[in-house]
């Protein structure tokens, strides 16, 4: 119950002081450039990696990128850059 309450407080704080929620709430950010590139910032780990599907954990759930010829162009503890043909990006 404690993390949920913390989240609510942080959300209210962000709204009150007009702060970026991604920073305050430790939320993941997804950038998509056309259908060829995607960047997941602030992920919490890679779950699955195939040529058609890349799944990464985040505080909000599992981020799933579906497409073809998917490749991880760079991978670090905070960021995953994906290239290929992206068809779907889902948060589950």
């Amino acid at each position: 119950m404690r993390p949920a309450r913390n989240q609510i407080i942080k959300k209210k704080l962000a709204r009150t002081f007009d702060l970026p929620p991604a920073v305050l709430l430790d939320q993941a950010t997804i950038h998509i450039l056309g259908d060829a590139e995607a960047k997941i910032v602030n992920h919490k780990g890679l779950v699955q990696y195939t040529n058609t599907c890349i799944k990464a954990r985040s505080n909000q759930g599992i981020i799933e990128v579906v497409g073809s010829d998917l490749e991880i162009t760079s991978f670090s503890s905070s960021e995953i850059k994906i290239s290929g043909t992206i068809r779907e990006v889902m948060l589950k």
Partner: protein
Amino acid sequence: MTSLWMWWQGYVTVRLRGPGLERLLNRMAELGFVIQWVERLTTDVIIVRLRVKDFRRLRPLLWGTQVSVSILDKHGAPFWFKRFRLRASLALGLLLSFFFVLYLSNFVWFIEVRGSETLSLETLSSAVQDLGLQAGVARSTIKPREIEAELLKRFPVLAWAQVTVKGVRVEISLTERDGVEPEESGPGHVYAAMDGVVTEVLVLRGTPHVKDGQTVRKGDLLISGEYYDARGRKQYGAAQGVIKARVWYEGIGEGSLVRWEPVHTGRNHRQYAITIGNITIPVGRSYSLETHLKSEKEWQLSLGQAMVPLRFARIDYQEVEYIKVHVPSEEARREALRMAWDNLKKQGVDEDQVREERQQVDFLTDAEGVRVTLQVEVLDDIGQFLTH
């Protein structure tokens, strides 16, 4: 920018094979590994690019897992410098070759002659060599104007000569005169070129000083250039005529009664040689000709009429042992006689003109050879014109 930085630091392409590769990637990312271009090949194989220093930290992570790692390729500046260090001699060789070619370009390597019709290439070649122009000489030593003047002086048949230095090539352009008359000889006498007994005197111009049957010594005056013309005036001109005499020639030849015949041992060696101008560079070892038979095949680079000074030769050495073989005395005598005749022919004796022949055969003191002394009598024109 990241790629360039990775290249500068050096990176490796590695293949990771095994289960739970995503977990491994997460662990690597947590430890601050820079992971680039991750490719999934199969369900249990991925290819990743890692910095060299990260690769060194990877091994401990694999302990206790079923993941195996292998390096597929190495990239970047450290590997490039390492390769360059290993091939330093090659780079040095290239640099030296460059300077060597630069040095060689200071010399003349090709001489081209144009416009010579009656003058042979050999004559011209020998003449220009006398004047210091030949393949292999420094370009700075060539004096085109002096060579042109000297060529015109030496060959009256030439109306014009031009020597042009074009890089490593020298062009000699010539124009010949039409219908050049041979030079008239000046006044002079006819002298005996050798000892003999005069058999025939035919005077075309001048005064004879010998008669038939007279014995003359080498250097005696035969026909004088002084004579009196039809008006009784004394004239001095070029003596002309034919003085035939019986002349003796002697030729000596020796034939060996022992012959050393080479027997091939079966061992062969090969050597190559590159000749640039007057410089020969052997590639491979030379072998003594006392114990080896040598055969050579040569290739000369030719570019049209140009005299190219680059030759390439292949030299084959066959190792031999010599065994002593006895030669029959008749065969040795025949060989000695043939040599004696060769000797006579070199002195200008025509075999068909021989009137009398004397032969003497002696065995040499070491009993390993025979000597044939051959004396022949021929009828010869012994007159030799000399100017004053």
